[in-house]
């Protein structure tokens, strides 16, 4: 009887130990993964930046701004313009001193069709200071992975559009320290963008 109890207790202790070890192991794995977001640089369409001589956007130059980042493609007829118009219209309603602290940005994941020269007016159409940018496929892939976005270009043999870009429609919010602090899904942009950017620009 006593032997049996000891055996039960031993098994119980072992089970608890395994649980504790696996818990710490999981936490260790999670902290080993780099957080999503972070600094990047990317070529921009002409006239996107305040200094017309500058042709590269560097996130580290925007430590005094909240960056509102969106990945899409310019020949997108519905989802991207809807999201970008909501971003632009939302920002336009904010007081000027708040707007001055926000930098919206559109990055095309379709560099084959979206040449930088054709993008110079695209972002500005949605918001006067919205930056338009794109890069080589390799660099775009790196950046998309860095921010946890997703896209895939699908050949559409039966359609005149040629390629269809399957993509996430998410807004990435980068705070003034350059840290990606929030993501807003397509359906929530209308409701959540305003309060999110206001909370990050307060205290100025």
């Amino acid at each position, binding site marked *: 009887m006593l032997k049996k109890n000891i055996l039960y207790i031993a098994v119980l202790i072992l089970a608890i130990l395994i649980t504790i070890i696996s818990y710490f192991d999981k936490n260790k794995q999670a902290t080993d993964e780099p957080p999503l977001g972070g600094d990047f640089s990317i070529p921009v369409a002409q006239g996107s930046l305040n200094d017309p001589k500058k042709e590269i956007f560097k996130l580290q130059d925007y430590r005094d701004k909240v960056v509102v980042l969106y990945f899409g493609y*310019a*020949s*997108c*007829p*519905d*989802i991207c*313009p*809807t999201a970008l*118009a909501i971003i*632009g*219209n939302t920002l*336009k*309603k904010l007081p000027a001193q708040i707007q001055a602290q926000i930098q919206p940005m559109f990055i095309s994941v379709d560099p084959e069709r979206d040449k930088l020269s*054709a*993008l*110079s*007016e*695209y972002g500005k*159409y*949605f918001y006067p200071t919205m930056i338009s940018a794109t890069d080589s496929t390799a660099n775009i892939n790196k950046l998309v992975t860095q921010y946890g976005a*997703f896209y*895939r270009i*699908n050949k*559409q043999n*039966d*359609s*005149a*559009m040629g390629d*269809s*870009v*399957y*993509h*996430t*429609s*998410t807004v990435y919010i980068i705070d003034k320290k350059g840290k990606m602090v929030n993501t807003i*899904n*397509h359906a929530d942009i209308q409701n959540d963008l305003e309060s999110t950017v206001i909370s990050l620009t307060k205290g100025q």
Partner: protein
Amino acid sequence: MTNIFKKHFVKPVFILLLMINSTLALAQISIKDGYIREMPPGQKVSAAFMQLTNNTSDPMILTGGLSELTSAIELHQHKHVNGVMQMSKLNELVIQPSESVALKPGGLHIMLMGLKQRLVKGTSFSFQLQFADGKLQTLTLPVKSLINP
């Protein structure tokens, strides 16, 4: 007096009624709340949205559209799979008798491709809807902008 009445009232009314009736007879599909999106500068595509109602007693199969001012007009659908927007061509849209189908943002749209001119708000654009039985229906839709000033 009778002649004047005939000339200035009966005849125009008769012609008007004839016109209305012939329009109704031709309008196999009625279109409500239709519009086309204003295009951002530098782009060649746009989308048309509307509510289509089948007024005939047979199913109507919409297959796309036609216009000389575009390179192609197709019916497109969106699927929202695990947060990923997937747009693809829809070969046909069946509208049952007296059924209404809404083409709206985030769902179905008629995609206008290779537009030869930029469509801007305040203007309108005409094209033809194309059906599987070969019938065409012309529609003129206003161009609307998403952008607030």
